[in-house]
């Protein structure tokens, strides 16, 4: 799973590009498709139900 932060940054970059630059329609469509895919992934991550607690390898000297 790519970092959520990178995902969001890329999405923001796509939106800015689409808004500001005069791209080929073809290129714009490609960016849009990528944006939609990243949106889907971000939404999915955000609506995930529960966090997981994992125990790290028992650190030496840990515990009681």
């Amino acid at each position, binding site marked *: 799973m790519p970092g959520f932060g990178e995902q969001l940054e890329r999405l923001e970059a796509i939106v800015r590009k689409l808004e500001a630059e005069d791209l080929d329609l073809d290129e714009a469509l490609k960016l849009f498709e990528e944006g939609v895919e990243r949106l889907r992934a971000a939404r999915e991550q955000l609506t995930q139900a529960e966090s997981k*607690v994992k125990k*790290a390898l028992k650190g030496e*000297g840990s515990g009681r």
Partner: protein
Amino acid sequence: MGAPLDLFAAASAEGAWTVSEVTRRARTVIEAGLPPLWVRGEVTGFKAWRSGHWYFSLRDKTAQIRCAMFRDDNRRLPGPPPEGTEVFAFARPSVYEAKGEFSLTVKELLSTEQGGLWKLAFEKAKAALQKDGLLDPARKRRLPPFPLRIAVVTSPDGAALRDIEAVITRRWPLAELILVAAKVQGEGAEASVCAALQVLGKGTLDVDVAIVGRGGGSAEDLWTFNSERVARAVAAVPCPVISAVGHETDVTLCDLVADLRAPTPSAAAEAATPDRVDVLAHVEHLAERLARGLSQRAQRTVDRLDRTGDRLTGAMQFRVEQSRALLTAHGARLDALSPLKILARGYAVARDEHGRVLKQVKQLPAGREFTLRVTDGEVDARVR
């Protein structure tokens, strides 16, 4: 103190006491006569034994007393008193019979400086950390905005872990919590917390941010987080560290070295994570902008096509009109040159039976028949 002492009253029949008898008697007398009291003096000749017991003397300008402070009592102190420190000692006067030595059994030790020994040890450690640049504000790292792996150094069954877990589950369940178990109070806590921090220090757990903390507790228990060793171990962790030692009023060394100090473990978890409701709203906003961005981009294409169409039509119209004008002009010239036009002006054309034009007199001998073309038709004619 009771009745005046008469040390010789109980002399044995032989007129001499054994050494043990004297020391025992002295001890009894002293313990009965001098109840536990606060003594003020300067620490000298300090020695900590392997057993954990401390031995030193308290002195002033003219006298000194041997002192012992046993492990169970000195364990709660931040550290040994530096040589020469002036202290208040709460002690029980006694006689150490094996050496016949008058001594104090110290139960409690405070520096006469404000804050006592704690403060003293704290300031000393703080100065050492400062010297190594570990308290430099420029060292503070920014917390990652969207952490996916959060390490928690705390007790596996303490309130701190439960609180942190609850906050993360509510705010940012994308994150995985990685518990690095440590004993956070009592004997061995310092070593345990250091070991856990060293596990983090290896960097192999690949976490974005770490929370070091515990729930509430007494100020004495706080000492673990005032240990210079713990502070240095915090500084060595490769990711940003939030200290959540659970004490509102006392700032610990761990707090000072950490990248952020949170008053409670819950607050630390809040500081470590964004609220997914906010992030989701931001994502939806981006979704709208994405859709609008594309439709605007498409609209620009449609507009351009329209404009191109207009230009094409315009160009065509111009061409057509140009051609029409040309045609009219040509038509006019053609018209002017037309023989019919000349005939209309009253001229006539004579042609022989083969249609050849007869232009000269010699072509028209007498009796010659020919056709004469005038403006509205032809007539047959003959030369007389």
